[in-house]
């Protein structure tokens, strides 16, 4: 495989094979991948920063190990992009915000540390909605990400850069974050695989906090197998994140290759109401395909689904209003003038945050303010219990739940920017997974007549990523020529 035009076709295993067969060195691959990404990036605006020095350092280490028949990690020489809400030591991390324009973190996120320990080469930081708040990547202070499949359309968000880079071929794999759908929705819009693991499966240490009880880190890739490999490398207990889970990590790549025959799959009626007709027929065809592979399909109900949006926008904004209080003009590089400390705080935050972030801080502050706590925050936490219980009840009868990721495919840039509620409604099928903390993913399952990708969403029980990946892998194998 020649590297110059082969970058978008690379997979983790083809990189490994190329390195071990001495077809190319990690250094040559890093150079070629960076060059390709730098040339292609202006089309989509997926990358905000390239990290040449860091990638070449990782490459040198991989080449040394290969030369002495040493340790070849699971991600040896794999060009990796990292969403810009995940901190990287000595590498600018903006969170898509003006307020962190010059922020150089003094430490690495655990997820990044673990991927680099397996030989991954971080080639750059990826655009996203400001502080991961958005569904279209139009809330980035550095401009929207254009969808590689249709450049006048949004990439989805908030991890728009992470999805677009993989779809465009400017990274082999990327990582992003999901609080209400920010991995699955852009993955479905760009036609790539995106996984939101069980809450606590991947350490949040170094993920800039938006809503701590809902935040997840997860992978994007062009194949289910590559996504599974990245997830496996990041997963596991981390003493730097008290909410990271002790549960053992399954051998995803081995287990996903088992047949899906006999698996019981539920279709929740609530996820098929108000669905765009084209999306509906593509999802129906995907379900039939899985039936042909031997899955038993039945109708189920997740009765509290319609309350998820209200529940989410109380809990997520309440947590965000607290988490974002730290950007006050003292510790994070940018300060606006003010005669008193309070004036300085207000001016810095007023000029540093974009419109959507301010809207969410305001909503979160309102729902937590004196006299409203029980009516909003406590109520939302009780409804969250009901939503989580819906999943527990459903999983008593089925092994997995299938649904669309989004009610419609990628929309036009600018189409929904002036209507926050309409934008929020585009996340209506993804919010529940984060609220319940169950693993969920998007796997490409077809296109609209206009050639816009559509994603199939798969949910399974807590820590049962193996069954979710098994369904995705078997579906992908049956449908990819």
């Amino acid at each position, binding site marked *: 495989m020649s590297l110059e035009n082969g970058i978008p076709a690379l997979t983790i295993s083809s990189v490994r094979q190329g390195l071990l067969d001495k077809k190319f060195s990690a250094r040559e691959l890093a150079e070629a991948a960076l060059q390709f990404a730098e040339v292609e990036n202006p089309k989509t605006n997926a990358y905000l920063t390239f990290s040449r020095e860091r990638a070449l350092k990782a490459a040198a280490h991989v080449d040394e190990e290969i030369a002495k028949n040493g340790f070849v990690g699971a991600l040896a020489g794999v060009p990796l992009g990292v969403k810009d809400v995940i901190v990287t030591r000595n590498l600018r991390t903006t969170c898509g915000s003006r307020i962190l324009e*010059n*922020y*150089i973190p*003094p430490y690495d996120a655990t997820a990044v540390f673990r991927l680099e320990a397996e030989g991954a080469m971080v080639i750059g930081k990826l655009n996203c909605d400001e502080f991961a708040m958005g569904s279209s990547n139009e809330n980035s202070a550095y401009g929207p990400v254009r969808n590689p499949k249709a450049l006048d359309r949004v990439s989805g968000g908030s991890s728009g850069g992470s999805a677009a880079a993989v779809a465009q071929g400017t990274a082999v794999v990327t990582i992003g974050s999901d609080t209400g759908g920010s991995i699955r929705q852009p993955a479905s819009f760009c036609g790539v695989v995106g996984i939101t693991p069980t*809450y606590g499966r991947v350490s949040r240490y170094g993920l800039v906090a938006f809503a701590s*009880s809902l935040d997840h880190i997860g992978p994007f890739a062009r194949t289910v197998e590559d996504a599974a490999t990245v997830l496996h490398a990041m997963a596991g207990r981390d003493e730097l994140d*008290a*909410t990271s*889970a*002790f*549960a053992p990590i399954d051998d995803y790549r081995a287990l996903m290759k088992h047949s899906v025959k006999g698996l019981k799959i539920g279709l929740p009626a609530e996820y098929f109401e108000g669905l765009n007709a084209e999306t509906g027929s593509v999802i129906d065809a995907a379900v039939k395909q899985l039936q042909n592979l031997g899955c038993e399909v039945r109708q189920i109900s997740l009765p509290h689904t*319609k*309350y998820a949006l*209200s*529940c989410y926008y*109380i809990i997520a904004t309440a947590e965000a*209003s607290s988490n974002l*209080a730290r950007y*006050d*003009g*003292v*510790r*994070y*590089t*940018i*300060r606006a003038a003010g005669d*008193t*400390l*309070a004036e*300085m*705080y*207000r001016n810095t*935050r*007023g*000029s540093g*945050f974009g*419109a959507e972030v*301010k*809207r969410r*801080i*305001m*909503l979160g*502050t*309102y729902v937590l*303010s004196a006299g409203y706590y029980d009516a909003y925050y*406590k*109520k*939302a*936490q*009780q*409804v*969250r*219990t*009901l939503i*989580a219980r819906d999943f527990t009840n459903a999983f008593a009868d089925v092994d997995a739940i299938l649904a669309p990721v989004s009610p419609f495919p990628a929309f036009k840039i600018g189409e929904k920017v002036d209507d*926050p*509620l309409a934008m*929020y409604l585009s996340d209506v099928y993804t919010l529940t997974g984060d609220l319940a*903390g169950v693993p969920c993913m998007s796997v490409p399952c077809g296109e609209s007549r206009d050639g816009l990708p559509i994603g199939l969403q798969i949910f399974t029980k*807590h820590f049962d990523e193996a069954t979710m990946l098994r369904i995705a892998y078997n579906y992908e194998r049956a449908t990819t020529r």
Partner: protein
Amino acid sequence: MNLSEKEVRYVADLANLRLADEEVSRMRQDLGQILTHIEQLNELDTQSVEPMAQVLYSADETATLREDVPHTSLTNAEALANAAISGASYFKVPRVIER
């Protein structure tokens, strides 16, 4: 339902946000629209439902505790490297206490 200008300015003060006049009027409308949508939660009787603050898994009570082993942390210079203004090993802010 729109929020009043007074309510919006009060919440902005709590949140330490300076809002321009046009942002205040936009916020009255946007927050009002979202809060109206959120009222649907009142359809649900949640009197006997426990609130859920966090996804929890069963584990030993002390499972998240670790050995108390000292390790190196950031140096003062590293910790201050992103300060808007620093001096004499501290973050500097506008004067708070009058002598």
